[in-house]
């Protein structure tokens, strides 16, 4: 069903395109050898190139190029073997060279696409227009001194990928799902860590509204939105604002806006008239970037399995599409699951990971990168279930003990004597004792009160301290009670 916003004049469609800035995971900046660690002392990761000193020249970092190509491949996009860096000229205190080096006219990656899965289980293809490499600027701090601005150039020159989508999204949910999917793909590839709160990923959100069947109306760009949730909120806030403008007889002007996260509204940053003339031209310090097809092929061959492929493989292994989706959201989760499932029943493994294990993560507020139970131990637990050493109920007990102690399940089973009793003799002895002690109930059962069967199961298990194999207990009781 199409998402619409109800206005006074009826329903409005929302049209959304995203420009996502993703920081390339790399040890060094795009054009200098300076480091890129987050949270370092201000101006401690700055080379003379990054600070725009006289006579300094950019030299491209091959690792950043490889990351952009890998990302392009992950987006099923065309890789351009010939691309070029342009200068985008503007003055700002945190832009040391007075220009940003960016790929304006000839990006390294062209058209691609991303499939997103929505809450109702449906999927949608979102087109990617291009991906290009560019330098980040530094950071201006205006709140450190009453009359001065502080400049931190640590980010100056850090490699960013700008990933531009087609205006293919039609709801906040789709925008959120697209951003989440981009993040997921890049995290699988290891090309961007996707830490939005550290600024490793941020989005410029282009929004317009229209009546069904119309062409595109004027769009506004909401700059620098730094979480998936805020992107979804910004889309809705901006769409509602534009609907109000149109419905009150006004015209939406093309402009750049900011999302005020506290008040949940967008506000104007600069209009089209104030837009900079960036005077783009090819950077004469950098020859065109020419890639060998064979190099691209090598990168392609060494790509890790991507989330879509992995999900399909899980479904083929017998998992439900839902479980397959949940297990592949984070690469670390999928890796955890695969360790658990290796050589074991995949469905049982999936049930344990998405069930008890996820519940434990939530309860303990822990992350998959810091799991309370290792994948190896969880796998061993499944082995103990499979060889009937443990019953399901015992396994849950052992699992809790594993969380508490961090010990291997076999150790816990041994130390606490939690081994399931499958010795029919022992079960028969226990059943005999129960029947002897409850002769009245045996008579009632035999007289037709069959729901007493559960009572005998409970008493037997209790007598056996929960360790009786439930199937065998049932079997013996049925035989003896007749």
């Amino acid at each position: 069903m199409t998402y619409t916003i109800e206005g006074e004049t009826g329903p409005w469609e929302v049209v959304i395109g995203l420009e996502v800035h993703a920081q390339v995971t790399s040890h060094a900046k795009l054009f200098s050898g300076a480091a890129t660690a987050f949270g370092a002392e201000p101006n401690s990761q700055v080379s003379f190139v990054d600070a725009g000193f006289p006579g300094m020249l950019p030299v491209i970092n091959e690792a950043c190029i490889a990351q952009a190509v890998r990302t392009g491949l992950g987006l099923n996009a065309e890789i351009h073997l010939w691309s070029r860096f342009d200068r985008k000229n503007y003055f700002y205190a945190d832009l040391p060279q007075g220009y940003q080096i960016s790929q304006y006219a000839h990006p390294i990656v062209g058209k691609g696409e991303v499939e997103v899965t929505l809450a109702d289980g449906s999927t949608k293809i979102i087109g990617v227009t291009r991906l290009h490499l560019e330098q980040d600027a530094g950071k201006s701090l205006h709140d450190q001194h009453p009359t001065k601005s502080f400049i931190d150039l640590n980010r100056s020159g850090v490699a960013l990928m700008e990933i531009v989508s087609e205006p293919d999204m039609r709801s906040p949910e789709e925008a959120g799902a697209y951003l989440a999917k981009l993040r997921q793909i890049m995290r699988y590839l290891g090309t961007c860590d996707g830490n939005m709160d550290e600024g490793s990923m941020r989005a410029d959100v282009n929004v317009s509204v229209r009546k069904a069947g119309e062409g595109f109306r004027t769009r506004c760009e909401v700059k620098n939105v730094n979480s998936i949730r805020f992107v979804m909120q910004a889309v809705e806030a901006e769409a509602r604002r534009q609907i109000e403008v149109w419905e009150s007889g006004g015209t939406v002007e093309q402009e750049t806006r900011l999302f005020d996260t506290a008040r949940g509204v967008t506000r104007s940053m600069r209009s089209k008239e104030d837009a900079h003339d960036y005077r783009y031209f090819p950077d004469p310090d950098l020859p065109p970037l020419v890639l060998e097809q064979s190099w691209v092929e090598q990168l392609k061959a060494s790509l890790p399995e991507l989330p879509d492929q992995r999900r399909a493989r899980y479904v083929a292994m017998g998992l439900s599409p839902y479980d397959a989706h949940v297990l592949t959201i984070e690469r670390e989760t999928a890796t955890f699951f695969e360790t658990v499932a290796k050589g074991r029943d995949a469905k049982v493994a999936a049930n344990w990971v998405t069930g008890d294990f996820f519940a434990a993560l939530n309860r303990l507020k822990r992350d998959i990168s810091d799991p309370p139970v290792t994948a190896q131990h969880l796998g061993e637990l499944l082995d103990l279930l499979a060889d009937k050493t443990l019953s399901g109920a015992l396994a849950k007990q052992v699992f809790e003990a594993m969380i508490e102690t961090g010990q291997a399940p076999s150790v816990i089973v041994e130390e606490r004597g939690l081994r399931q009793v499958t010795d029919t003799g022992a079960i028969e002895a226990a059943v005999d004792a129960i029947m002897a002690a409850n002769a009245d109930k045996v008579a009632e059962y035999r007289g037709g009160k069959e729901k007493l069967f559960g009572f005998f199961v409970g008493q037997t298990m209790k007598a056996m301290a929960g360790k009786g194999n439930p199937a065998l207990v049932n079997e013996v009781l049925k035989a003896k009670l007749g």
Partner: protein
Amino acid sequence: MMRPTDLTLAEGLEALEAREISAVELTQSFLDAIERLNPRLNAYITVTGEAALADAAASDARRAKGEARALDGIPLGIKDLFCTEGTRTTAGSNILGGFVPPYESTVSANLKRDGAVFLGKLNLDEFAMGSSNQTSAFGPVENPWSRANDPEKRLVPGGSSGGSAAAVAARLAMGATATDTGGSIRQPAAFCGIAGIKPTYGRCSRWGIVAFASSLDQAGPVARTVEDNAILLRSMAGHDPKDSTSANLPVPDFRAAVGRGVKGLRIGVPAEYRLDGLAPEIAALWDQGLDWLRAEGAEIVPISLPHAKYALPTYYVVAPAEASSNLARYDGVRFGLREKGSDLKDLYERTRARGFGAEVRRRIMIGTYVLSAGYYDAYYLKAQKVRALIRRDFELAWGKVDAILTPATPSAAFGMDEKQDDPVAMYLNDIFTVTANLAGLPGLAVPAGLDGQGLPLGLQVIGRAFDEETVFAVGGVIERAAAFSATPQVMA
């Protein structure tokens, strides 16, 4: 023995090796000459006498141990566009303030590696923008030559490497570094009666040289002889991974090519360079040069460079465009001059208005204009297309000839009071040199004769990309035939 300052660089190396003179003595001779003549010529902005003598002493020590390097003990001047670690670098501008680079340009570092001694930093047009060395914030440089019939008239040394050329001509350095974006090595070399080569684009690293127009800038030497240029270029050149436009090619022994001769070489004469109104003296010198080459066994071949006539306007779009962007970093924020402002924009405006001279401001404005939305296609993009055609003209020519001979400049040195009101008349100085920059080709200016006033005139040899050897071979023949022995009126 000759006076030390009269030695050519090659002779200086021999004298040092023969222990006829020490590097300290040689250096002291030049420092004395600088002290005496620089107040008049203004060729040096900064003289680094103490460091020079210390380096010279170190050089003598190396030589004594038998560890002398290719240029050991040779006193050189460094154009003040090259960043020199620990020594103020001005680019001839106020905007750099007292900027002392914490790094050494690759070219000057290469010279140091080979044992050269730096006497100081040489004056230049501000940011290398100019053809007369009059745009320098540190005052104009005077040409050591003067007219026979008007000896009091002060002449320009050419530009932008006016300090480099004047210093070498007046024997205030054995050689000097220079840079050439549209003719800034060759025109001042010709005006001052010395030789200078702009190598192929990519031959010398641009790292650490204050940028003017990145796609055109190229460092090269100026020195009194072709051979001295060959010696210096071998040390200056070489691949530099810090400059993405630096060529990863071996550096040949240029010196060996100087005496190679021109027998069997085909020398091109571009018809389009026979400009209307070309001074008869220049035309005659050009013909003389061709005769010399023919006499040494070269074949003279008429060629056509049909787009050469668009070279100057093309250059004056491309170079300012790149400059407008390259000079954006001089904003008063991180280094150099800062004028207080009420806000950031005000700080920019005051700093840049105060820091840049008129010619630099003019070029920044031209460059900003030609890159602006709505004008980009008509100016910058069109200029790039013409530039490609100029390159193609040369590529076609190289099918027929091995080198090209042209005049270096359309006139001899002019007076300091001339061509001041009309920037376009000033820009015409580059008419013969600018094509080599646009096409990235090597060009060598060789002193070849005197005009009627006794002022030096030069010829230019243009060669194929990375074929400086042929250029040196042709230049060597011209130099020997011309036997240029005149000396400037002001000289150590």
